[in-house]
């Protein structure tokens, strides 16, 4: 993962005493970190607590963060270590299956491993995912392609402009309009 310029700016702001900037990093990465921690613990509430603790640890350690790795890479290690410490304290294995604690890190998006997720929780997540996918399917082709190339394929605006044979400004506009359309459907489901 390449270094995000936005992350770098936010980190520098926090390092200069701007606590609010850290909120943006939490809002950006919280789902990924909770998802990561969920590979170690059964209970979604525990996963949230550990993720929360990991972010607080990261905030305290930020003065020592020199940007030699991407912020998320650094945050990832803190979250994994926090989860492992939690398990060590609790003296229990993270999963019923034979997965070793280190193997858990390698498992990506395997939702079948989480046994304590309630149907309500899964329903909300599935509803969100379905809403997003339906919104994308309903988009005009140029917007659909632009947002897919960006979010799924991870292409830069410049690369998308080449792929779609249009100016970068048009790419930016298409991606924005796609997000607006998806967000319009998503907003009623999510409360912050």
């Amino acid at each position, binding site marked *: 993962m390449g270094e*995000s*310029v*936005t992350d770098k*700016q936010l980190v520098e*702001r926090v*390092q*200069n*005493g*701007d*606590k*609010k900037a*850290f*909120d*943006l990093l*939490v*809002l*950006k*990465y*919280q*789902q990924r970190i*909770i*998802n990561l921690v*969920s590979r170690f613990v059964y209970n*979604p509430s525990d*996963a*949230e607590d550990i*993720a*929360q603790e990991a972010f*607080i640890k990261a*905030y*305290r350690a*930020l*003065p020592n963060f*020199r940007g030699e790795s991407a912020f998320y890479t650094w945050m990832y290690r803190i979250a994994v270590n926090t989860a492992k410490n939690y398990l060590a304290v609790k003296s229990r294995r993270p999963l019923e299956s034979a997965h070793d604690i280190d193997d858990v890190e390698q498992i*990506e*998006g395997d939702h079948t491993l*989480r046994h304590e*997720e*309630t149907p309500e*929780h899964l329903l*909300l*997540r599935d509803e*969100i*995912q379905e809403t997003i996918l339906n919104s994308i399917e309903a988009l005009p082709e140029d917007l659909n392609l632009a947002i*897919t190339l*960006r*979010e*799924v394929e991870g292409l*830069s605006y410049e690369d998308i402009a080449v792929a779609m044979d249009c100016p970068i400004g048009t790419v*930016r*506009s298409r*991606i*924005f309009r796609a*997000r607006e359309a*998806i*967000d319009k459907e*998503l907003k009623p489901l*999510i*409360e*912050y």
Partner: protein
Amino acid sequence: MNEQKREQLSALVDDELTQEASSVIESLLEDDEAKETWARYHLIGDSLRGHLPGQIGNISANVSQAIASEPTILAPAKKSANRKSSNLMKPVMGFAIAASVAAVAIFNVQQANQISETGQIPETGQPVIAQSSIATDQPSFTTSIATPQLVNQETGQAQIYQAVNIDYRMNRYLVNYNEYRANKGVSGMPPHVRMVANEPQSNK
């Protein structure tokens, strides 16, 4: 938040905002609605990439509350800046080291002079010095003096010190000789002494 700001926010999410990034972040920090949009835009990406957890949580409020009681971070200057300044300081450091060596040399010469005046070796804390005996050409006058030659110094510094040492020993020799002559009732400098030579002592 108007449409232009939202489009900028979308570009910021993609890390594709370079020039206006700072001002957009600034306005984002002050606008709760914009923060929520920022979070949802990232949620869309997480969902499409399969990064959503089973339970969609929002821990930002709790984290924010927890760090509110934490001391404000003021990180030290970055290493790169330190490296720059250390590069600039290198010549100054060189002078400082040279000055320190010179100061040590002067200190030892002063101590050696003190020895010549008192005839005793001071016991105060001092650099390690090698002692050697110099026998005068008078059989009844043998004295042991501390020669200010530092042990384990680099060759150049040792040479400087040896030169200082020779001067010191010669001066000491002449002083002792004159004192001896005065004790014997002979005054003035010996008229036959025109030149004093020194041969370096070989280490045994």
